[in-house]
């Protein structure tokens, strides 16, 4: 920011020079120019973020169902009852929401953890050049480049009980009898974790590969001379030097996975099995299938509060740790 400061100051100082009028006009012009440049962004931020968010908070206090959809401003005031229903563990709605929340947390931890480990493993393995490295890099990135629904729809086909490749393969390897249901019941959770990891880990790889490119090679050479093995080099050099990137990466992976709608919606359509009842689908169903928009909004607001707290704590924790380091 200091460069900008001095640029602005220079501009002002120059205004006191001999050719006053044109320079001063230019400085004045620069004062409102940033706002002019920002105007489109501000208008659209208001339109797609600020106003909808305020509206959403407002709706969460209304008893809004399909009868009031066309004139929702006239929907009766519900006070905090939507919030009460959402978190009341004695009621069926509250119980289901908490279950869905627990499933989502488990799903998120597994998917982020596995994706990070796979991405880190592949990034380290691809760090040194060998024959076929460029080809592998390209192959690994394809799941990320594919449109989400196209990649996930193939998994849906692969996991189908009678026509699917997964059951066929497992039977050929004599692991199962080949008649397992993967998309309903308790197996659905494992299925969606695998599919989400397949789709997400290339992003971890991409980010970590880019981060490793910037690491100095001479440190590794020095470590090797001192007799440090691969594992030690990874623990003592790579991990600490990538700390900043990892902090951003893990936060982004967490938020994407927690909020993910595309993968579960494509894999299960709207009839999601209980074992994989992810929260974004859960809220979607409350709003657009049960037409309880007020309740759906209250759930969204609760989610938002949760994400704010988690992100805040995470940022506080990581920034304090890196400052101490």
């Amino acid at each position, binding site marked *: 920011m200091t460069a900008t400061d001095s640029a602005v100051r220079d501009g002002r100082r120059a205004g006191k020079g001999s050719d006053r009028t044109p320079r001063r006009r230019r400085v004045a012009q620069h004062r409102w120019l940033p706002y002019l440049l920002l105007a489109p962004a501000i208008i659209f931020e208001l*339109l797609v973020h600020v106003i909808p968010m305020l509206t959403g908070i407002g709706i969460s206090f209304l008893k809004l169902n399909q009868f009031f959809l066309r004139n929702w401003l006239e929907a009766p005031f519900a006070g905090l009852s939507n919030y009460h229903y959402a978190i009341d563990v004695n009621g069926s709605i509250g119980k289901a929401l908490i279950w869905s929340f627990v499933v989502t947390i488990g799903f998120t931890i597994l998917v982020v953890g596995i994706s990070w480990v*796979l991405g880190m493993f592949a990034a380290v*393995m691809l760090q040194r050049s060998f024959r076929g490295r460029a080809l592998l890099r390209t192959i690994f990135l*394809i799941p990320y480049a594919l449109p989400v629904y*196209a990649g996930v729809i193939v998994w849906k086909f692969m996991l189908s009980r009678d026509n699917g490749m997964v059951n066929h393969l497992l039977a050929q390897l004599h692991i199962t009898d080949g008649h397992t249901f993967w998309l309903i019941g308790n197996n659905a959770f494992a299925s969606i974790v695998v599919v989400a990891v397949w789709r997400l880990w290339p992003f971890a790889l991409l980010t970590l590969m*880019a981060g490793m490119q910037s690491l100095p090679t001479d440190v590794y050479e020095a470590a090797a001379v001192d007799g440090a093995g691969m594992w030690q080099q990874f623990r003592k050099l790579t991990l600490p030097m990538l700390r900043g990137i990892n902090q951003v990466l893990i936060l982004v992976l967490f938020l994407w996975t927690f*909020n993910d709608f595309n993968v579960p919606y494509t894999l299960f359509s709207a009839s999601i099995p209980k074992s994989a009842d992810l929260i974004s689908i859960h809220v979607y169903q409350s709003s657009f299938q049960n037409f309880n928009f007020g309740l759906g909004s209250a759930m969204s607001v609760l989610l938002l509060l949760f994400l704010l707290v988690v992100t805040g704590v995470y940022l506080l924790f990581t920034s304090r740790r890196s400052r101490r380091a």
Partner: protein
Amino acid sequence: MRESTSFKVIRVVGLTLLTLFTLAPLYVMIVSGLKPLSDVQGAFSWIPSHLTVQPFVDIWHTIPLARYFSNSVIVSLSAALFSVLIAIFASYAVSRWNFRGKQVFRITVLSTQMFPGILFLLPLYLIFVNIGQATGFALQGSRVGLIITYLTFSLPFSIWMLVGYFDTIPRGLDEAAKVDGAGPMRTLWSVVIPAAKPGIVAVGIYSFMTAWGETLFASVMTNDSSKTLAIGLREYSTQISVYWNQVMAASLVVSVPVVVGFLLLQRYLVQGLTAGAVK
């Protein structure tokens, strides 16, 4: 540098497994798209009983795929271009000037990225319905409406990334342009934008790809005429059966443009992501 044998073994085994995991769905997609319907309706087979390109012909007639395709192109391209354009101006302002409200703007943009899409979907839906009633202009169900909703995720991302990218461009270049008599807009056009090309390209590809794969807004904000591929592809499943060979053929067709574009521009994407996100 010397590599131990055990390390080489780990590398070969690990990378082979990851390759199989990555490629299995692609193999299924391609090979099933070339199978006759009877082949995909029974137990899975690794090799088609006989190869046929018929599914690639049929996909266009079973559902109005061409229309969904053009809807997806129009919506994704507009959303990407629109958000990149808005983001270029905004990021230039944030990166190069100090002004009142800058922190508020930055924090708003940054924080909206973490919110679940469902949070904006419902209010936007209701607002669109209301605007439609008040003005007669039906945003809900139109491509314009969908493009606007896609800005909820592409705009904050674009601004965030481009501010990071513009910050890496030395201010000295701006100063030099100023000495040469260029105004701020001239500087943006002939100095900052060319220098930030990789970042701008990366943000554009990313926005396009995300829009091309989006299903949440598309499932609520479209009607029969504005449906995108993400929702349209479901129509290969009927009450009676699923035309899996056509689903696979269509998935391949809709993936090719994005994957080819991604692989061609991958270099920019890696460069842009690193410079913008990892500072």
